[in-house]
């Protein structure tokens, strides 16, 4: 019997001990520093700008390094490392005048040599995503310590928006280019940015300390910590309890809950983002295509668009967060976005039926339409395993298209496999999305003939569209260029190789009881996780 009593005693001690631990919360000392804690769901894969690809890794890079330029809320280009620039009459020779007295995090002076080195290093070694921006730079000359000229091989419309961070020559010239795109970890990244990474624990957190000598003025924040969460509950709860100051990438359901609770100290921000989700068809008119040839018929594609109630899809699958999509350039980029007005093919199942009937697709005995050649309108829709939202959308598409006599088989595969099948031309249709650059050129380029077997994922090919793309790329006049870009969107919409399902929002939430000065950039955009770092520069403790 004594044995049992001892055990009971042990249990009591254990219980008391755990209560003690439980009661010990909140003993953390008052932190004098201004630490901005950011919660995010996805990992920062690397600190090496040459190999990163995710939004969150770009955020770290954008804080650690600087571009030559930035943007204001209207997405008009503003000075950054370059205080001004001009272009000669040919439109091919650009001169950048750099800020004076800027130093790298390690105290070395920043000069025109660094700019020249960065662009040449990337151009000559074709490094990372940056290569696109420097590929057409023919000659880069250092005029003096603070002036650099760039000669391009043709006029380039998106100049001077060179989205390449400037690297210090004294560090990167030592790095073998193969390593730069390989195992170089860049553990102590030296840049000119407002913050510098001081501790990086993969999959856990990344700490950045303020740059006391930041050339645009020292930010009020002393430290930025991006903390990676494996589950959304933890992240949202941490924000609610004030452990985090801001969170991004919030799932719809939790965002809705945050909105409904209406904590006065928390702003739930449903911001526009530069991304969209599309239903892409295989319109490849080539022998090698393994897609269903019926989808080459534009009438079928438009009928499908009419048959889809996209608002309902957004309401159910995205909890109402998102906007019905229309053209390739999201409305976030107000200046470039084409408003279709009357021409938009809104939900109208009767219209879908009429179009199909007129085109000779008659209803078969089993409720599935058949083409004049006798083939059923039966397609496979590929969905990414990685996206539960897309899966919900797919099951709704299946139901909605069944209403008009089109049969859909949904197949869920993972991104790697889907990419493979796209390159193989082995698909009827799939759902995926794009993240659009500030300049619309790159998203429009995706649909050009040249991009087949490269960026293109619908194999769209239209010589008129291709020609317009080349012209707009060379048009430096912003208004003139706008007309061309609007026309391209109209052509693409008319041919309908994509059905734009939704323009996706960026759901984030931040606390307003500790810091003020949250900047949305662009105007309807998010406060963080864009290429623009105004929030970090502007944020200050309340009352200071």
């Amino acid at each position: 019997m004594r044995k049992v009593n001892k055990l009971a005693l042990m249990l009591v001690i254990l219980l008391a001990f755990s209560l003690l631990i439980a009661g010990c919360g909140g003993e953390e000392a008052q932190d004098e520093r201004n630490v901005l804690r950011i919660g995010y769901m996805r990992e920062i894969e690397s600190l090496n700008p040459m190999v990163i690809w995710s939004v969150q890794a770009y955020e770290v890079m954008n804080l650690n390094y600087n571009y030559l330029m930035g943007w204001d809320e209207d997405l008009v280009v503003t000075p950054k490392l370059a205080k001004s620039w001009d272009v000669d009459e040919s439109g091919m020779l650009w001169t950048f005048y750099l800020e004076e007295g800027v130093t790298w995090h390690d105290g070395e002076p920043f000069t025109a040599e660094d700019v020249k080195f960065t662009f040449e290093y990337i151009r000559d070694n074709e490094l990372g995503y940056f290569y696109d921006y420097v590929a057409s730079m023919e000659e880069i000359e250092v005029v003096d310590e603070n002036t650099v000229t760039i000669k391009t091989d043709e006029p380039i419309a998106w100049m001077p928006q060179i989205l390449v961070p400037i690297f210090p020559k004294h560090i990167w010239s030592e790095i073998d280019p193969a390593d730069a795109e390989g195992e170089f970890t860049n553990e102590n990244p030296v840049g000119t940015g407002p913050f510098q990474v001081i501790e990086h624990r993969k999959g856990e957190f990344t700490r950045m300390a303020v740059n006391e000598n930041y050339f645009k003025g020292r930010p009020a924040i002393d430290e930025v910590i991006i903390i990676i969460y494996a589950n959304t509950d933890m992240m949202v709860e941490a924000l609610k309890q004030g452990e985090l100051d801001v969170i991004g990438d919030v799932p719809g359901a939790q965002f809705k809950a945050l909105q409904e609770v209406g904590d006065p100290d928390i702003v739930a921000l449903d911001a526009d983002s530069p991304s969209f989700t599309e239903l892409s068809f295989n319109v490849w008119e080539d022998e090698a295509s393994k897609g269903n040839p019926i989808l080459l018929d534009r009438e079928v594609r438009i009928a499908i668009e009419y048959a889809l109630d996209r608002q309902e899809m957004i309401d159910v699958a995205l909890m109402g967060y998102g906007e019905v999509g229309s053209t390739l350039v999201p409305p976030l980029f107000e200046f470039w976005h084409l408003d279709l007005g009357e021409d938009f093919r809104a939900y109208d199942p009767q219209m879908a039926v009429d179009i199909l009937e007129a085109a000779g697709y008659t209803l078969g005995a089993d409720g599935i339409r058949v083409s004049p050649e006798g083939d059923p309108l039966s397609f496979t829709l590929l969905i990414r395993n990685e996206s539960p939202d897309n899966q919900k959308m797919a099951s709704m598409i299946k139901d909605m298209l069944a209403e008009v006599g089109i049969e859909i088989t949904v197949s869920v595969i993972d991104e790697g496999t889907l990419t493979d099948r796209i390159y193989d031309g082995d698909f009827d249709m799939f759902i995926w999305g794009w993240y659009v650059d500030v300049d619309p050129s790159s998203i429009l380029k995706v649909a050009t003939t040249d991009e087949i077997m490269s960026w293109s994922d619908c194999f769209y090919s239209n010589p008129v569209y291709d020609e317009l793309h080349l012209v707009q790329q060379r048009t430096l006049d912003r208004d003139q260029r706008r007309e061309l870009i609007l026309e391209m969107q109209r052509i693409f919409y008319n041919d309908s190789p994509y059905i734009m399902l939704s323009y996706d929002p960026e759901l984030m939430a931040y606390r307003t009881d500790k810091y003020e000065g949250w900047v949305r950039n662009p105007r309807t955009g998010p406060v963080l996780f864009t290429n623009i770092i105004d929030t970090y520069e502007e944020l200050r403790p309340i009352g200071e």
Partner: protein
Amino acid sequence: MNMRGYLLRKFIQASITIFIVVFMNFFLFRIMPGDPIRVLIRNPKISADALERVREQFGLNESRLVQFWIYLRDLFSGDLGTSFNYRQPVWDIVMERVPATVLLIGTATVLSIIIGVLLGVIFAWKRGTRVDIVGLSVSLVLYSMPTFWVAIIMVMIFAVYWQIFPLGGMGMPGTFYASAWAELTSQLRYMFLPTITFTLILIGEYVLIMRSSLLEVMREDYMLTARAKGVNNRNLLLKHALPNAMLPVVTLIAINLGFIVGGTIQIETVFSWPGLGRLMYTALTNRDYPVLQGLFLLITIAVIGANFCADILYRYLDPRVKS
């Protein structure tokens, strides 16, 4: 068979097993559908040169056999390859996560053995009574629960409903603590739920094994003799029955390591614990094959090693084998 011969035989067996696992590990990752290069390069627009460079870097341009040879050679020099996602040596990435997992697994294992053995002894001692029946049923129920589900329930009760423990993680990075004591208690608070959950999961089996093992031992002749000699119950239990009954527990610890690894993947996922389990989970979602491969190999070797040690320990401890 003498000890040395036994050792040698066991060692050869373990080595063969490891070799088969290495072989499987290599070819398993080569049968997957899709070109790994597509997963590796998230930028579809890459020049043919750059593509070739990456292929070379990851050894993807060689034939299968040559790849296997390179893989073996690298393995023996401790090179597990380079992560697709982090672009860093897999070995470094894995080693960074080992301490967190060892801390979690170690604490939970020790706790569950102590409590499990104690309870097993009590239930065996009181076999057939209500205590025994209730205890046995609870152990079976614990044993039948999906690990991740228990973890979720614990979070719901203690972190969401009562809010007395943190939801997960291993601490809030960049926090200032007033004292070492404050830091320690804060750490313990973060450790508490994952550890207790793990202990709950593991405990059922120890209870069951200890109980049945002790019952068996008590039926043995020498126990009856000892009892006849008038050794009192307490001494009988502590001096004679327990040491022998502990034997299966020793083996169970090793055999269980495979199960523990499975449990740690689930618990670390639910509690965002930054250890090997969570690394495996993120490697899975990122399709980071080199990390998966390396993790799988290291975990398997650890388990095989543990089994080998348990075999030896068992032989060393078991009086019947010795004589």
